[in-house]
C-alpha cells in the first residue's frame, strides 16, 4: 500500500514540459505528491520536505535530482526501467529518510540485439545504445547486456537571443549533461553482476562568475543464489553531490566548493522459509564525508582559506522483516529496522545555549575531537508493519504503520531549494528527524486483466526534530550554523483517492488528495502550529492518453493544487533612507495563502515509421495550454523605478503557452 509503480511506458505517455519525458514530473502527478511550483527542485510527499525523500538510482542515493534548478530531473528516461514511489508502509529494507522512497531502477539493456534510441527536442538531445554481451556458454547467451545513455541540453544556444537583452547575461553559459551506463553480466545460473553509473553536471555562468553542480553515482551489485530458498544481493555503492562557484579574475578571485560523498556496503538476503513465510534481512553501512564549504579568496594575489571543516559520519542499519501469509485472505508484513548513526571526528562541536526561543543560540563553548573519535551516536529502532486483508478477489483492505529516521538534513530556507543548499549530518546539536506514520486504505481492482485500479487511502504522520531557522539565518559558510537552526514538530494528514485505467485505447489515472501539513516551532509564529511551505489543501490530477490509431495517440494532463502558504508583511517603515522595510506586527508565519495552481498540458504522438529495424515518432506538445500565469510565490519589494514606493509581486515561473516538438528514433 501507499506505493505507486510507474513503468517507463506509462511515464512516456504523460505530456511533458517542452516534450521531454521526465520521471520526477510524472511522480508529481501521483496522489499525495506535490511540488512548491515549477522550477522548484524535488517533490513533497504527504506534507514532507524535499530532503525527506530517499531518491535511489540503482540503490545509490541521489542528493540533488534536478537539472536546471528543477525543470528537469537527472534521470534519463531512455535508461530507466521502472520507478517505485513508496509513501508509507515502508518495507524494512528502506531507511534514512522520513517521508518517502523513490526507487528508480535502470534498464538492463537489450539482451538480444544492439539497439539505438535517440531524440532531438527543444531543450536537449538524447542518445542511448544498448545491446547484448557475449558469453562463452550457449546457455547464458542473450542474458548479459549493457546500456549507455547520454543527454546534453542546448538551452544556452536557444536562450541566447533572450539573454542577450539583459546586459548581465549576454555571454552567459547555461547547460547540463548527463551520462548513465549499466552493465549486467550473468556468470552462471547462480551469479549475476551489475555495474551501473551516473554522472551529470549543470553549469551556469556569466563573465566573471561560474557556478556548476552535479551528482555522480556508481553501484556494483552481485546477485547470488545460495540455494533455491536463499537469494542474496551484495551491493556496494558510491554517491556524491558537489558544487563549486567562483567569481573574479586573476589576482582577485573567490572560489567555493562544497560536496557530500558517501560509500556504502549493503548485503541483502531473501529467505523463502516456507511457502507462507518470506524473510528479508540485511544490513547497510555508509560512511559519509561532508564538505560544507571550502572557500579560497585571493585579494591582490594574497590567498586566504576560510572554509568550514569537513564532517564525517557512519550510518548503519540492520533489518529483518517477515512476510507471512496467515491465510488466503490475510497477509502480514512485520519487521524492524535498527538504525544507528555516528557523528565522528575529526571535528569540533559547538556547545549551545538558547536563552530565548526562536533566537540565535549563544555559543558557550566548543570541544575538539580526534580522527574517527565518536562525537555523538544515535540509535533509533524503527518498527515496520503492514497488513493486507483480501475481502474477495478484487477488494482489499490494507493498513500500515512505520517509523523512520533521518540523519541527513538539507539546510535550506528559500522558497525553492537552491543547488547551493548544503547537506549536513545530525550532530550533537542537530537531532535526527523521526516520523511515525499510520495509513489505512481500501483497494479495488475491476476486470480480469485488472482493467481498473481504484484506491482510497488515509494517512496520519507525525514528525519530530524538524529543522527550522531563526529569522535572518545565515546558512552558508557559517561556522556557527547550528546556532541559527531551530527544532520543531510536524504533523501531516490527508486522504488520497486514486483511480487508474490500465487497458484499452484509453488509459490513465485520476487522483485527488486532501491534506494538511503543519509545523510547530517554539519561538516561531508565537509558538502556534502553522501551515508549512508545502501545505497544499487540495491537489487533483487527471492524466489520460488515448490511442486513436496505430499511428496517432494523444494525451492530456490537468493539474490543480491549492496555493501554498507564504509570509507577507502588512506594514512597512523606513530607516536611514532605506525605504519599505517589511514588518508583520502579528509575527505569524505563513499568514497568506497564494492563489491556486492549475495547468493543462496536451500532447500528440505520431508514429512516423515502424518497421522491424527502424522506428521513429514525433511528439507535439503544448504545456500550460490555457496560458495561466500560475503564481510560484508572492513577495514584496521596493519598486525598482521608484525607491519611495513598495509593491506586492506575483512571481510566475511560466506565464505563457509553451509549445514543443521532439523527434525520437529507435533502431
Amino acid at each position: 500500500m501507499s506505493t505507486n509503480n510507474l513503468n517507463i511506458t506509462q511515464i512516456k505517455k504523460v505530456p511533458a514540459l517542452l516534450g521531454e519525458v521526465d520521471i520526477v514530473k510524472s511522480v508529481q502527478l501521483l496522489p499525495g505528491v506535490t511540488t512548491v511550483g515549477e522550477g522548484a527542485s524535488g517533490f513533497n510527499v504527504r506534507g514532507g520536505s524535499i530532503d525527506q525523500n530517499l531518491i535511489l538510482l540503482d540503490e545509490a542515493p541521489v542528493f540533488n535530482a534536478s537539472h536546471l534548478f528543477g525543470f528537469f530531473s537527472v534521470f534519463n528516461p531512455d535508461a530507466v526501467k521502472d520507478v517505485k514511489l513508496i509513501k508509507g508502509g515502508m518495507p524494512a529494507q528502506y531507511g534514512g529518510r522520513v517521508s518517502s522512497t523513490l526507487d528508480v531502477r535502470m534498464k538492463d539493456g537489450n539482451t538480444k540485439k544492439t539497439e539505438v534510441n535517440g531524440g532531438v527536442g527543444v531543450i536537449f538531445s538524447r542518445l542511448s545504445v544498448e545491446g547484448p554481451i557475449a558469453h562463452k556458454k550457449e546457455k547464458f547467451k542473450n542474458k548479459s547486456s549493457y546500456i549507455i545513455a547520454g543527454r546534453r541540453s542546448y538551452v544556452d544556444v536557444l536562450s541566447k537571443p533572450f539573454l542577450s537583452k539583459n546586459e548581465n547575461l549576454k555571454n552567459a553559459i547555461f547547460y547540463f549533461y548527463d551520462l548513465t551506463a549499466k552493465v549486467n553480466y550473468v556468470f552462471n545460473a547462480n551469479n549475476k553482476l551489475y555495474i551501473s553509473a551516473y554522472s551529470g553536471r549543470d553549469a551556469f555562468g556569466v563573465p566573471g562568475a561560474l557556478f556548476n553542480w552535479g551528482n555522480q553515482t556508481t553501484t556494483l551489485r552481485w546477485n547470488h543464489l545460495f540455494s533455491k530458498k536463499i537469494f542474496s544481493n551484495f551491493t556496494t555503492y558510491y554517491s556524491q553531490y558537489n558544487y563549486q562557484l567562483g567569481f573574479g579574475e586573476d589576482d582577485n578571485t573567490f572560489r567555493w566548493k562544497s560536496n557530500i560523498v558517501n560509500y556504502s556496503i549493503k548485503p541483502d538476503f531473501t529467505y523463502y522459509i516456507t511457502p507462507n513465510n518470506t524473510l528479508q534481512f540485511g544490513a547497510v553501512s555508509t560512511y559519509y564525508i561532508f564538505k560544507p564549504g571550502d572557500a579560497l579568496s585571493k585579494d591582490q594575489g594574497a590567498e586566504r582559506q576560510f572554509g568550514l571543516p569537513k564532517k564525517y559520519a557512519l550510518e548503519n542499519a540492520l533489518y529483518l522483516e517477515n512476510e507471512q501469509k496467515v491465510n488466503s485472505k490475510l497477509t502480514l508484513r512485520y519487521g524492524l529496522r535498527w538504525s544507528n548513526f555516528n557523528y565522528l571526528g575529526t571535528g569540533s562541536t559547538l556547545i549551545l545555549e538558547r536563552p530565548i526561543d526562536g533566537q540565535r543560540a549563544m555559543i558557550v563553548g566548543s570541544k575538539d575531537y580526534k580522527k574517527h573519535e565518536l562525537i555523538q551516536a544515535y540509535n533509533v529502532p524503527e518498527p515496520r508493519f503492514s497488513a493486507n486483508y483480501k475481502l474477495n478477489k478484487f477488494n482489499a483492505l490494507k493498513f500500515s504503520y512505520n517509523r523512520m529516521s533521518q540523519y541527513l538534513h538539507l539546510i535550506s530556507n528559500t522558497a525553492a531549494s537552491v543547488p547551493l543548499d548544503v547537506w549536513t549530518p545530525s550532530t550533537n546539536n542537530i537531532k535526527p528527524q523521526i516520523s511515525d506514520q499510520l495509513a489505512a486504505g481500501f483497494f479495488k481492482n475491476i476486470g480480469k486483466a485488472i482493467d481498473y485500479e481504484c484506491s482510497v487511502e488515509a494517512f496520519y504522520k507525525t514528525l519530530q526534530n524538524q529543522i527550522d531557522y531563526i529569522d535572518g539565518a545565515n546558512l552558508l559558510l557559517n561556522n556557527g550554523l547550528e546556532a541559527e537552526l531551530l527544532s520543531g514538530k510536524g504533523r501531516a494528514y490527508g486522504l488520497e483517492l486514486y483511480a487508474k485505467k490500465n487497458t484499452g485505447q484509453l488509459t490513465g489515472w485520476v487522483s485527488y488528495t486532501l491534506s494538511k501539513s503543519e509545523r510547530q516551532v517554539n519561538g516561531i509564529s508565537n509558538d502556534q502550529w502553522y501551515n508549512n511551505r508545502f501545505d497544499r489543501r487540495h491537489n487533483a490530477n487527471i492524466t489520460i492518453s488515448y490511442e486513436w490509431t496505430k499511428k496517432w495517440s494523444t494525451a492530456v494532463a490537468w493539474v490543480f493544487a491549492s496555493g501554498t502558504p507564504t509570509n507577507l508583511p502588512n506594514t512597512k517603515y523606513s530607516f536611514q533612507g532605506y525605504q519599505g522595510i517589511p514588518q508583520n506586527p502579528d509575527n505569524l508565519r505563513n499568514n497568506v495563502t497564494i492563489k491556486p495552481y492549475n495547468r493543462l498540458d496536451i500532447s500528440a504522438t505520431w508514429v512516423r515509421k515502424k518497421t522491424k529495424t527502424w522506428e521513429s515518432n514525433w511528439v507535439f506538445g503544448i504545456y500550460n495550454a490555457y496560458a495561466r500565469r500560475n503564481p510560484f510565490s508572492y513577495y514584496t519589494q521596493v519598486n525598482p523605478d521608484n525607491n519611495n514606493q513598495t509593491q506586492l509581486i506575483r512571481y510566475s515561473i511560466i506565464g505563457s503557452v509553451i509549445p514543443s516538438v521532439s523527434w525520437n528514433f529507435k533502431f
Partner: protein
Amino acid sequence: MLSNKTLYFAFILSAALQFSACEDPIDLNLGEPVEQLVIDAVINQTADTQFIYVTKSMAYLNNGAYKGYALDSVGLFDTTSQTYFPFQYRGNGVYFYVPPAANTFKVGHTYQMLAVDKGQIYFSQSELHQPVNVDSFTYEFKEQGAFGGTRGYYVTLWAKDNVGKGDHYWFRVYRNDSLQSKPGDIIIAQDNAITPDGQGDGDLFIVPIRENLTPSPYRVGDKVRVDVHAITPELYYYLNLISTQLNNTGLFAVPPSNIPGNIICLNQSKTKILGFFCMTGKVSTPELLIQ
C-alpha cells in the same frame, strides 16, 4: 556573513530564469495594518547637525509618505561625562541637535538615547567607535565592474580596517549629492571583509567592498563621495537583516521576517518599538569629480 555574495548569486540565478518568469504587481488584502512607533537615530561625532526621525509604520501597499510623530522629548545622555544633550523638535517627527564643535560626541564614550512619549520611556544605548582613516579615493575607467556591470567609471576606496578584531563599518555613497539608499546600496563590513573570519584585521577593505560601491558605473561629470561609519556590531546585524529583507525576491526568496531593533520600552517590555539607535565614528572621503 556572506550575504552580499549569496545575494549576487540569487540575482544571477533569478536573472537566468527571467527569460521565462513573469513578475506582475498585484493587489491583495494583507490584513488590517497595526501602526508601530519607529525611532531612527544614527548620530556621529562630527560638527554636522544631528537628527533623530520619529515616524509610524504604515500599511505595506500604501505609497504615501510616512507620517512623522511628535514625542514629548528625546535626547542623548553621555554616560562617561554624565552630560545630557536634548534634541529640539523641527516638526513632522524630525528632532535635531547642533553640536558646538566636532567631537562633542566622543569616541569611546557610551551614549543612551532616552525618548519620552505619554508616560512611556523608550531607551537604547550605544558606544561611539573610532572612525577609520581614508588613504585615498580614486576612480578608473573599466570595461566591466568587479561584480558585473557595464563599462564606465568605477571608484575604489583605499582605506584600512582599524587594528583589532571585531570592527564593523557602514559605507554610504553620495552620488551627485544624493544619498544612495536603494535596496542594493547597503554596504557593510566586518573588519576588512564581508565574512567575519578575522584574518584580514587591519588590512585594506577587500575588493567586494572597496570596488563595489556602486551598482552602476559613473559617468564623466558625476560627483561621488563616501561616508564611512564605524558602527556597533548590533547595527551591522540590523543593516544586514535590512539588506536581506529588501533584496528578498524571486525563486530563491527566504520567508520575510521582522527585524528586531535595539530600542526598548522601559515601562512595558511588551510594547514593541521599531528602529535603531547607534553612535558612529564617521569619516568622509573628499568629493571626487569624474573627468
